[in-house]
């Protein structure tokens, strides 16, 4: 099986002095559905954002699909990024634009500025965008403004936008943290479907262990910027769970 992501001794120290990642070594195979667990502030978001350089890593090596991400600049960085879909907790859609236009923005990494300005005239792009909206069950909402959609619908539009990139990997940063449990499950189901049918590798940070068990093929847990657990979802028992979450939670309560 092909190794699609390879991280070697990855460090991130913020300007404020916070040491968010302390030597992450991680290899992800193609087709895995990897769940990132860990408390808020354990470095999950930093790790995901370092991997497509939304945050600059301090040191270490990142290889995605045999491309060196750390040294990439300008056009090459754009080329790497366009194969990495990203899904956010706050959906991060452009609220004043229609769902269809939001999906089309997923194509920006592929096209010239002029092409981007005249998106609606490119029949081919629009057709693919509609297809992607259909995949997440929102074809009838194509012309609705993003701000008028519900949270779950917005997240599905975000998934369609990621699909528009034709991605090999999707990073999902707590995609269901601001959704109700039922909607959360449906969003995760769409992600699972992409993982199975399209063979897209997914890295998804979560807080719900139940969802991790249901959809994940592998679980990596972070604590204070270090990997403290790496295995299958079934291996997480009460003791392991306490290792990841427990003690800190108690500490928080004391404060």
């Amino acid at each position: 099986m092909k190794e699609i992501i390879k991280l070697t001794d990855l460090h991130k120290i913020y300007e404020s002095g916070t040491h968010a990642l302390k030597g992450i070594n991680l290899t992800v195979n193609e087709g895995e559905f990897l769940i990132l667990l860990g408390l808020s502030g354990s470095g999950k978001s930093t790790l995901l954002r370092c991997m497509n350089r939304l945050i600059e890593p301090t040191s270490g090596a990142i290889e995605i699909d045999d491309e060196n991400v750390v040294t990439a600049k300008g056009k090459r960085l754009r080329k790497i990024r366009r194969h990495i879909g990203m899904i956010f907790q706050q959906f991060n859609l452009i609220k004043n634009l229609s769902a269809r236009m939001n999906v089309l923005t997923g194509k920006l990494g592929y096209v010239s500025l002029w092409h981007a300005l005249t998106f609606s005239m490119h029949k081919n792009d629009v057709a693919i965008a509609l297809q992607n909206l259909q995949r997440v069950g929102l074809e009838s909402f194509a012309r609705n403004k993003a701000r008028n959609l519900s949270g779950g619908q917005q997240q599905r539009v975000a998934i369609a936008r990621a699909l528009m990139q034709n991605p090999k990997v999707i990073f999902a940063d707590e995609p269901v943290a601001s959704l109700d449990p039922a909607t959360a499950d449906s969003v995760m189901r769409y992600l699972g479907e992409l993982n199975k049918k399209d063979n897209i590798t997914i890295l998804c940070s979560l807080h719900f262990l139940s969802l991790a068990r249901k959809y994940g093929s592998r679980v990596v847990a972070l604590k204070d910027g270090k990997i403290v657990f790496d295995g299958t979802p079934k291996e997480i028992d009460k003791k392991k769970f306490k290792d990841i979450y427990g003690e800190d939670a108690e500490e928080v309560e004391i404060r």
Partner: protein
Amino acid sequence: MKKKCKIKSYIQAVATDLLFWIYLFSCIYYLFHNWTGFTASFLFIGLATVLVTALFLILHLSIGRKIFLSTRKKKRWYKTSWTYILIIGLVITFIVGINIVEVDFYKFFTKFQNAGGITSGIFDPSIIGYELSPESIQNLSDGDIPPDVLETLKGIQNRKYSTKKVFLSDIEKRLGTSTFNTCKSTILKAAVKNTDLLNTALTALAETIFLALLATVFAIPFAFILSFFAARNLMPKTWLGNIVYVVIRTVATIFRSIEAIVWAIIFSVWVGIGPFAGMLALMIHSIAALTKLYSEQIENIDSGPVEAIKATGASTLQTWIYAVIPQIISPFLAFTIYRWDINVRMATIVGFVGGGGIGLLLLQQQQLLRWHNVGLLIWLIAFVVWVMDMVSARVREKLIGM
């Protein structure tokens, strides 16, 4: 480290006190000088200041000590009397202020009749102008009006306006209001009506509105482009990014702090008196103001979509177009309309110093002391400003709520 801090705050305390006492002594000196003609050398004042500062610092009465060297220990009453000193300082500031501004409420209440001309003008604006031509004065017979009045009228005509028209307000000024009122109807009968002034005023008003509009429209592209480079969150945190940011922000601030009226003076010399000079003045000021407003709006945007679009592999320009512009377009429009509203108001003032439009007309009429005409112009300006204000408020409400 701690000791260094202590020294630093001690210096701050002494400096604060020194400044405070220099200010207070200067104020007191100013008052004494005005009232008694007392003079003293600055050296003397300086010396007194230093002495008093030292004395009060030692006595723990000082304000600087309170601000920078405050301790939690309970103080004796005389050590907390810095508040009284502060109050004395404020009272003296107030007295000096009244002196400098030459506040004289007696004048305010007793000299109202000086403003009678303009007040009557406002209550009786000359929408329709009346004028007497030389012929119409010749046609007035002695029976219609008292002979002395007729003589005066002829005198005006001969002396000042041998061939031109005589305005009613000129006659009123010459005859005095009471005499004028008694024979007003006769004079009006002989006078020729016209709406010249109303026409001129409306033309000037249109000029004002259009010059304000053009100033705003021309300012938009400049401010729009500049604002992106003056937004902290869009500029890369490199030295080049910082320099661009600081330079644009500083220049915008300087240009904004120079009032439009000053720009109008400059441009009326540059391109000549007229609406074009006014437009340029308002444009420069608008660019600076809009750049600031726009860039602050950009700094307020949700950074999420920017991150998301960046993550798709979009270029910087694409990111700006897709993630930034949709978020700012309606507040930008709202600010622009607000700016137009401000510009219409400022265009009147700018006209006074050669910027054209209704301001220039107002200045001319005011200098000719034609108060009824001034009244008309004031009403027109007030009406337009009121309408603009209302419309722009409505539109802004709609845009922001979008």
